[in-house]
């Protein structure tokens, strides 16, 4: 039971770490996404 609960804790830790670590990589802020460097409207 101890190992099982520990695995849940580790799993949640990794998921949370990945969520916060990769957020800036996977989700581009609108200020960057719509900047003139990224989008040219002419």
């Amino acid at each position, binding site marked *: *039971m101890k*190992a099982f609960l*520990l*695995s*849940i804790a580790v*799993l949640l830790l*990794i998921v949370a770490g*990945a969520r916060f670590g990769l957020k800036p990589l996977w989700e581009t802020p609108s200020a960057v996404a719509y900047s003139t460097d990224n989008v*040219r409207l002419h």
Partner: protein
Amino acid sequence: MKHLTTRRASARYLLPGIAFALLFLAGLLLPLEANAQSSVRPPEDATTSIAPPGPPLQGGVQGTESDADIWRDIRQGEVGYVPIPDKSAGLMIQSQGEDWRLYRNGPMNDYLGYAMLATIVLLALFFAIRGRIKVEHGMSGIKIKRFSTLERMSHWLMALSFITLGISGLNFTFGRSFVLPVIGKDLFGPLSGFLKATHNYTAFAFMVGLVLAFVLWIVHNIPDRTDLNWLAKGGGLIGKSNHPPARKFNAGQKLIFWGVMLLGLSVSVSGWALLFPFEHHLFTSTFALLGNIGIDVPAILGLPEPPYTAIQEQQFNSAWHGIIAVVMICLVLAHIYIGTIGMQGAYDAMGSGEVDLNWAREHHSLWVEEVMAKKTERSSPAPAE
């Protein structure tokens, strides 16, 4: 008099009727252009087309003209010019995408579904015929340590993340067909969004679990001579008093281990390429590598010739990821079966980490001997010289 009145009344309705019929016929016979004429006359210098000055554009700027050649080129993947940094946006129609979509929604989904159903049916049949494999000599009540806390934690980390990935992944493939009709669009949309995010982030937990399990168990999973004997006897699954000797892991468990490791590596790599799209060319590289040793995979599978575009790589990755994941699901279903209802005493190994001595002697006799020998070594100190 009465007769005359009736005749006049008939003539009164007959004339307008004839006039209406003539007008109707005239309307049918008039040229269509006449029908389209507007009562508003445009000025003499009015522009009748919104086409820009210069030579006429191919296809017509209003799209009113059909140009078979230009549309055929677009349909076949002709890349046009776009003024944005992402030049891949110039590809209006990626023709192979339709092939991928038809394959994914058609035979791929069908066969993957059949494979999982067949696995469940086979396991149920096996259980019905063989029943639960019991400890022949009964439980001794003496426990022997089989797996440490770290080993079990790694196993459960891999297991829990795999189940989460399996449920969320199957929703991508079969959710639209089976879940959507039951729970409706309003719930299916947010649920699928949540499961997609869960799938993406849980993937890392699975990879960590996979690496941990590999490091902890590789030494016990190197094939040896005992495995041949174990396989020859069918692992003792059929018949009684037929338990071939095995070390910590028998040949069946070694097959599961290597299956999970290799398929897990493959599903992780293809999943990584899906998480970070358009950055890898796994299929072009792999097919080139196999081509060098004489295996022409595209020709065998009837695929287009490499090199593949970034979007084609994504499509192959998506299909491969789904196929490998379902093969793993089938393998893991068999593993879960034998570790729970299929065999008495087997679950304790991952539950408490301790197994019954009689169970261990029947299924892993060589391992029990090794453990006992080590215990004896520890309990009897080496004689002083």
